[in-house]
């Protein structure tokens, strides 16, 4: 009987092996069944701390004419501090999607890194925040690359940051089972596509393909001999070789174009071009080059508000212009047009009460210290009419920062594959058809 039982079990196991579904690289059985709303998401963090008074409530006039309808003129007291920008034409962004005017950064300190971390992980940072460490919860990039089916390479996930500091750490987390293997390509274009970057990286030795093959073969031999010491992820995320070549070509082309002066005034706005606009410009280059499925780009020049309220208002206008330019680029990019959802949200707001610093136009500056007003933000979801509810304004308190990650997961169709309990928010279903 024992022998017969063994044979029966062995036969079942063998049959099961043939019948079992393919185990995906992510360790998950079966391909994802979640249907997608769109094949691309661009999250633009309208960051630096934007108060709803100046954005949604137009306390200083309509500082976001490319996003918001209305022709409220800018407060004459600060008009002298506004740089020249083109005027909007055609539909405003809010008319091309759904605007949550009373969104909330409900918990955690209203700090820039805390806010970015919340937007990218779907979890508020409630304990001590160590800016030298990677997030404790997986980022949206890791959820996407681990749970999307088929598994996508890093070329499909980009985190384009306007500064260095702690922000490079947001392309993957320290959460067990996630990490560098599923992280995004991080780039800080302002540092790498720059004169110091060019001096460091702009004149490489160009090897022939056959020479690179020899190098690869030798390196593999050496790596095999060192395999017991090496831990995957020690060098951050890894692009597969074919895609690393594409990225290298992209960077080298960017150097060439920068040297040729093509980046001196790329949007034709002259001296009005600030760091945020440049960061969005570089994100657009990446979008045009690689058509990623998931792109996150941020802007933070608005944070001059700690010492310069009028400069803050001026930079809100520039961020508004950059956001609209980003959407135009997406719509002009084959493969992204009509198949992309653009989400824009500040990481947090600013205090109700000003500090004591007065600017040249007689306006007091604002900090962000977690008062109730600094938790009041907006969220804009823009997309094609067959996917996103058009011209919808939700003026009641609806939605939180932690809802951004579930919304992205819903759009890209892997929401149901994220293990339960990992996300505390819910997707912004009101925005979608």
């Amino acid at each position, binding site marked *: 009987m024992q022998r017969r039982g063994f044979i029966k079990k062995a036969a079942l196991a063998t049959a099961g092996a043939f019948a079992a579904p393919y185990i995906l690289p992510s360790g998950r059985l079966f391909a994802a069944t979640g249907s997608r709303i769109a094949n691309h998401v661009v999250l633009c963090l309208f960051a630096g701390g934007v108060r709803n008074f100046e954005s949604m409530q137009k306390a200083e006039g309509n500082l976001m004419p490319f996003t918001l309808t209305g022709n409220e003129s800018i407060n004459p007291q600060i008009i002298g501090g506004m740089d020249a920008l083109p005027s909007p034409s055609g539909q405003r962004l809010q008319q091309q999607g759904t605007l949550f005017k009373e969104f909330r950064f409900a918990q955690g300190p209203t700090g820039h890194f805390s806010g970015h971390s919340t937007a990218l992980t779907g979890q508020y940072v409630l304990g001590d925040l160590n800016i030298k460490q990677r997030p404790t919860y997986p980022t949206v990039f890791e959820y996407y690359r681990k749970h999307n089916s088929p598994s996508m390479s890093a070329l499909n996930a980009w985190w384009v940051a306007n500064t260095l500091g702690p922000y490079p750490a947001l392309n993957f987390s320290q959460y067990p089972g996630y990490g560098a293997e599923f992280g995004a390509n*991080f780039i800080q274009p302002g540092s790498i596509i720059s004169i110091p970057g060019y001096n*460091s*990286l702009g*004149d490489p*030795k160009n090897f022939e393909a056959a020479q690179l093959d020899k190098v690869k073969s030798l390196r593999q031999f050496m790596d095999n001999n*060192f395999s017991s010491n090496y831990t995957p992820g020690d060098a*951050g995320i890894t692009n597969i070789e074919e895609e690393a070549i594409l990225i290298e070509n992209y960077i080298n082309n960017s150097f060439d174009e920068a040297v040729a002066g093509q980046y001196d005034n790329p949007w034709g706005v002259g001296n009005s071009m600030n760091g945020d606009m440049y960061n969005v410009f570089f994100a657009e280059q990446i979008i045009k080059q690689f058509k990623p499925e998931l792109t996150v780009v941020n802007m933070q020049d608005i944070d001059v508000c700690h010492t310069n309220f009028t400069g803050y208002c001026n930079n809100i206008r520039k961020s508004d212009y950059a956001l609209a330019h980003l959407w135009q680029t997406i719509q002009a990019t084959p493969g992204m047009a009509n198949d992309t959802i653009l989400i824009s949200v500040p990481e947090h707001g600013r205090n109700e009460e000003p500090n004591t610093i007065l600017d040249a136009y007689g306006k007091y500056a604002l900090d962000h210290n977690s008062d109730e007003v600094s938790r009041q933000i907006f969220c804009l979801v823009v997309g094609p009419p067959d996917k996103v509810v058009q011209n919808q304004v939700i003026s009641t308190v609806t939605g939180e920062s932690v809802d951004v990650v579930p919304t992205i997961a819903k759009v890209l169709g892997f929401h149901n594959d994220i293990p339960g309990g990992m996300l505390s928010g819910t997707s912004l279903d009101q925005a979608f058809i």
Partner: protein
Amino acid sequence: MKLNYKNCGILPLLLVLVLSSCKKETDFIYGVTDIDIQKPDANKPNVKSTFTFISIAYSDLFGTTISQAQLVDLQTAYASFGDQRFIEQMIIKNFLNDGGVDIPLQSEMNADVEQFIKDSYVKFFNRLPNEFELWHIENEIAADPTLTPELIYFAMMTSNEYRYY
């Protein structure tokens, strides 16, 4: 117990030998820098910091210390991209394209391949190659006359082991 006096002449000799064997060894210093030779894969649990990687790579290729200004620029470029292995390759490629780089000529390598490999392992990995590594790379060099010292340097400096100490 009887003593055999026929062998008494041997005793002083044994005494001299015993005493001389206890003599403190003299340390001779020949002016050669001490090199800590380790087994492959042993005692390299740490990843080099950005600062360390760039500084050592520069010294290994140029035989001198990198300037502070160049180090700052390279560190910034290094931090600006998330795939560190990728950016390391770009840094090394730029170093290799610099006129001041110090790489043996092909003829020097071919004159003593074994010594070239040993020197390269000590230079980049801080250890001698084991017999298998020596044999394998010797064979590669012998089989392919287009395999230059520059390519071997590039492979070693972009290998995983070079990132560890």
